[in-house]
């Protein structure tokens, strides 16, 4: 058993991906992205804001549900997280369902704000823990939010990275393809290839995702554990190798 949990690795990767952001928005039901954002904020020395949507205490918005979206369109949100029941190799994401539409085989909740924020937030991090051919498909059945296209549409945002339980990908907006950046410790390139339904680019030598440093682990478990527990109490009780 490693000295850190799967969640702690993902939190560490998320925090690295958010370095330099001034304002990160996360969902109240997104504990790993949220914890990563709180870690990034702690590292920023007060330069980063984190807005936790749907919470009262960590919600700094005062203009109702529209404000997140207006704020993104104003260029005031640097990073956001999107998931997807299906994610394909062009960066299209599907939050609606499989099979036909509207009478789906499997129906998921719906597209939420994805069709908008994916165009307007510069660093959209696709975060989906499950890394299987069921999720990582060649072509999504329904495009809730499209990956970047060369159609001239106004777009300042889009996929910045794809983070799963197995690996971390960058997205190349010119080629419109994912590029494998690293495979998480304990997993292999073959495992990633076997479980990915779309083609992607990769370097000749694929590095391992850096494990959380002792400093990062002690930050997660120490000074910011309380903050995480305040925002994500259920999560904090189970996810950490050691919780304050």
């Amino acid at each position: 058993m490693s000295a850190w949990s799967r969640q702690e690795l993902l939190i560490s990767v998320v925090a690295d991906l958010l370095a330099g952001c001034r304002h990160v928005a996360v969902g109240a039901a997104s504990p790993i992205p949220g914890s990563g954002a709180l870690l990034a904020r702690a590292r920023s020395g007060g330069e980063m804001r984190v807005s936790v949507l749907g919470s009262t205490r960590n919600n700094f918005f005062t203009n109702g549900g529209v404000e997140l979206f207006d704020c993104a369109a104003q260029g005031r949100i640097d990073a956001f997280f999107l998931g997807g029941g299906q994610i394909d190799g062009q960066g299209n994401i599907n939050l609606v369902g499989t099979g036909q539409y509207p009478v789906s085989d499997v129906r998921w909740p719906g597209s939420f704000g994805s069709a908008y924020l994916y165009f307007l937030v510069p660093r959209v991090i696709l975060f989906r823990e499950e890394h299987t051919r069921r999720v990582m498909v060649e072509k999504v059945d329904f495009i809730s939010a499209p990956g970047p296209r060369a159609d001239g549409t106004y777009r300042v945002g889009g996929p910045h990275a794809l983070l799963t339980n197995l690996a971390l990908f960058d997205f190349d907006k010119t080629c419109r393809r994912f590029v494998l950046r690293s495979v998480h410790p304990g997993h292999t390139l073959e495992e990633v290839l076997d479980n990915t339904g779309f083609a992607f680019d990769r370097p000749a030598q694929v590095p391992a995702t850096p494990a959380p440093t002792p400093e990062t682990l002690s930050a997660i478990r120490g000074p910011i554990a309380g903050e995480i527990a305040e925002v994500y109490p259920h999560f904090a009780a189970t996810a950490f190798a050691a919780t304050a």
Partner: protein
Amino acid sequence: MSVIRSLDQLAAAVPDGAKLAIPADYSGVAMAATAALIRRGVKRLHLVCVPVSGLQADMLIGAGAVETIETSAVTLGEFGPAPRFVDAVRCGAIRLKDATCPAIHAALQASEKGIPFMPLRGIVGSDLLANRSDWKLIDNPFDANDRIVALPAIKPDVALFHAPLADRDGNVWIGRHRELMTMAHASKATLVTVEDIRDESLLADEAMAAGVIPALYISGVAEAKRGARPLGLWDRYGSEDEFLRAYVERAATRDGFNRVLADWLGRPAVAAE
């Protein structure tokens, strides 16, 4: 004329076939009024979820009250999928108008401003746009090389929600939950349930007034203690998580839903303190 009503009077003010705007589960859902609506057998609703829904939409769908749902998502969040919504979609039993959150907000703002449509960024290239014949891709009149989505205004017949406070004039305090104010501005009629009705005007104090929907927009107010239960109300009270967990499980079948609904409708109202 006083705007103070009973729950049954509120329910009677939502006609069959109404376009009904409802808020997200975290934004003040009028569940006690929803029970009254289901008891009166409301039919053919066109739900406009602002911008998503959960338990309320699922129960109305399960009760056969919904013909069309316009929403960015329906989910019971951490408790799981919305079982009657998912089942109705798979059977083709309801008409779907899948949207994205900011599009619903913007279309309500168009109604608020009395304009026929609102332009909005994003959306282009999605299958949402491909399936919404009422959304159009238009030329930006200020840039020949730019196209943008135009969303027709959504003007609900009725907005229905739950809030902490009203006064006897019909002013309603919604604090930071400003989407409720947009819903009221955008809708032909607005019905509200509240925890408490105060005698003194909510506009008397400038701090409170900043979070008030003026009576001008309010068609009816009914007192309903714990009126959002089994959902929560902001920082006032939490949701009944056991109910929600059991609901997701029991409502997986139509029979199970009918039983959980009957149990819920049979609950005694919360007594006034």
